[in-house]
C-alpha cells in the first residue's frame, strides 16, 4: 500500500527570521543572518572563524514549568516550531494524542550548552556535593533525542518516535522517514523536523578541519559564498524547522490546507570515507530520489543544494546535479543566507522552497558574485526570479557519508 503524503503545516526559526513573513522578506531583500561569533569564555578565542548564523531576536516562549524542566535551548527551538506547526495544521487534540500521529525530530547532539555544564562539574568537582549538582534532568535536556521526546511530552503525542542524529542530514532524514511512515500506512501523520542551538564546539570541529570560513570575519554577511570563486568554507548556524506530514485522504477529509506534497525520498551512504564528499555516492542518491518519486530529471525545476561553500563540496555537488538533472533546474544555496543550521538544515531548506512555491519566486544564492568555473555547469540563480516553482529537490549530505534527497511538489 502506497499512500500520498502532503504537508499541511510548516514553521521555521532561522537566522533570517521566524515564520514565513520575516523569512520571505529577508530572502527577497537579500538579508544575511550571519553575525560575529560570540565570546564563549571557552574555545571561541582559539577558533579562526569568527562568524556564526545567529538567531539574535527574542522568541516569545510560553512553556509551563513541567515542560521547561527537561528542556535545554535546543528543545525550546524544537517545541516552539512544533507548537506552531500543530496550531497551523488544525489537527484536533484527540487525533494528536491518538497514537496515529508520531514525531520524527532530531539534533546533532542534544543540548551542547547543558553538556558543557555537566562536563564542567565533572572536571572541576572537588567533592561529592559538586558531583551531586548534576540534576536529574540534565540527561533529559542533553540526550540526542531530547527534541523529539520533549515534543511528545508537551503535546501528548503517543505514536512512533524517530530521532535520527546524522549531523547535517538529521532533519532531511526526519522528513524522509516520516514520509515513509505515512506513505506505507504506519501512521496517519508525522510531525517532522530538526533543531540545533548556538554552539561554538561545532564551529571548533569544522574549524580544525579547515572547513570554516575565515576570510570574511570582518564582513560576516559576505560569507558563506556557495559556488562563488571566493568561497572559503562553511559558517555554522542555529535554528529549527518543522513540517506536518499527513496522509492525503486524511487531510482532504478534514478540509486541511495543503501546502505541498512529498513525492519522494532517498538516502544512501558513500560506503567509505566519513568526511570527504563523494561524487558517485551523491549522484546515486539524486537518481534514487527521482526513481522513488517516479519522475524524470526534467520534471525538477528547482534544486535546493546542500552547498555549504566548502572548496571541494560545492564542486562535487555541482557535478552530481549536472549528472543527475542536467542543466534544466535552477539551483539555489540557502545556506548563503542562513549559514549551516546543522540538524535543522534539511527541514529549513524544505520549508523555504515551499514559501517560494506559494509566492511564485526563486530566491537567489546570496554572495554568488563570480561563479567558480568548476561549478558553472548548472543553472545558478543570482537575482530574484518571479517564476512558478512546481517540483523541488532538497539535497543534504552529512559527515559519515550519509546522503539524502527529498522531492517536494506543489500540490494540485
Amino acid at each position, binding site marked *: 500500500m502506497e499512500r500520498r503524503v502532503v504537508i499541511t503545516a510548516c514553521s521555521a526559526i532561522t537566522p533570517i527570521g521566524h515564520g514565513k513573513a520575516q523569512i520571505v522578506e529577508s530572502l527577497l531583500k537579500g538579508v544575511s543572518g550571519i553575525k560575529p561569533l560570540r565570546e564563549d569564555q571557552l574555545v571561541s578565542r582559539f577558533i579562526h572563524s569568527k562568524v556564526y548564523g545567529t538567531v539574535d531576536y527574542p522568541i516569545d516562549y510560553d512553556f509551563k514549568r513541567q515542560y521547561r524542566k527537561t528542556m535545554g535551548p535546543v528543545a525550546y527551538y524544537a517545541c516552539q516550531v512544533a507548537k506552531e506547526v500543530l496550531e497551523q495544521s488544525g489537527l484536533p487534540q484527540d487525533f494528536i494524542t491518538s497514537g496515529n500521529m508520531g514525531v520524527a525530530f532530531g539534533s546533532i547532539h542534544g543540548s551542547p550548552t547543558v553538556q558543557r555544564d555537566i562536563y564542567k562539574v565533572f572536571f572541576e568537582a572537588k567533592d561529592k556535593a559538586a558531583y551531586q549538582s548534576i540534576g*536529574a534532568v540534565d540527561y533529559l535536556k542533553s540526550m540526542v533525542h531530547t527534541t523529539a521526546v520533549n515534543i511528545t511530552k508537551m503535546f501528548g503525542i503517543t505514536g512512533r518516535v524517530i530521532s535520527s542524529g546524522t549531523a547535517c542530514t538529521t532533519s532531511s532524514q526526519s522528513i524522509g522517514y516520516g514520509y515513509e511512515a505515512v506513505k506505507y500506512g504506519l501512521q496517519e501523520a508525522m510531525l517532522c523536523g530538526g533543531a540545533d542551538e548556538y554552539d561554538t564546539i561545532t564551529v571548533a570541529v569544522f574549524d580544525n578541519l579547515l572547513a570554516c570560513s575565515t576570510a570574511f570575519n570582518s564582513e560576516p554577511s559576505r560569507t558563506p559564498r556557495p559556488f562563488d570563486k571566493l568561497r572559503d568554507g562553511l559558517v555554522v548556524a542555529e535554528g529549527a524547522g518543522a513540517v506536518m506530514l499527513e496522509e492525503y485522504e486524511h487531510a482532504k477529509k478534514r478540509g486541511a490546507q495543503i501546502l505541498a506534497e512529498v513525492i519522494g525520498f532517498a538516502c544512501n551512504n558513500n560506503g567509505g570515507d566519513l568526511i570527504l564528499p563523494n561524487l558517485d555516492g551523491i549522484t546515486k542518491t539524486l537518481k534514487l530520489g527521482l526513481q522513488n518519486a517516479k519522475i524524470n530529471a526534467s520534471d525538477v525545476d528547482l534544486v535546493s543544494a546542500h552547498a555549504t561553500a566548502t572548496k571541494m563540496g560545492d564542486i562535487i555537488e555541482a557535478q552530481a546535479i549536472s549528472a543527475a538533472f542536467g542543466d534544466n533546474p535552477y539551483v539555489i544555496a540557502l545556506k548563503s543566507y542562513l549559514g549551516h543550521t546543522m540538524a535543522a538544515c534539511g527541514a529549513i531548506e524544505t520549508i523555504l522552497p515551499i514559501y517560494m512555491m506559494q509566492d511564485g519566486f526563486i530566491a537567489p544564492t546570496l554572495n554568488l558574485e563570480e561563479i567558480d568555473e568548476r561549478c558553472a555547469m548548472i543553472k545558478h540563480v543570482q537575482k530574484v526570479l518571479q517564476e512558478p516553482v512546481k517540483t523541488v529537490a532538497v539535497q543534504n549530505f552529512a559527515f559519515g557519508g550519509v546522503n539524502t534527497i527529498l522531492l517536494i511538489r506543489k500540490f494540485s
Partner: protein
Amino acid sequence: MTRQEIESEVKKIFLREFEVENPEMDLDLREAYAFDSIDAIELLLGIEKFLGSELTQEEKKQAMDIRTINQICDYVEKLVATRKDAPGVN
C-alpha cells in the same frame, strides 16, 4: 527543628525548584501541580541540601510513595530525628 520550620523549608524548595507558591498541604501533588518522578528526585536533592547530609538509598526509596506536602513534612521529620547534626537538632 520544629514541624513549622520543616514546613517552611519544604515550601521554600517548592517555590525555588518547582515555581509553586504556598502549596496546599493535603492535595495530591501530581494532580494539583504536575509533580512527577523527575521532581521527586530534585526534591530529594533539595532536602539533602537543607539537612546538610546525604540520604541513603533506602531513605530515598521510602520517599517514592509520598503524595502530599504533609507527607513530605512527615518524611523530613523522621530524617531529622535520625540525624544528630541536622539543622535545629541539639
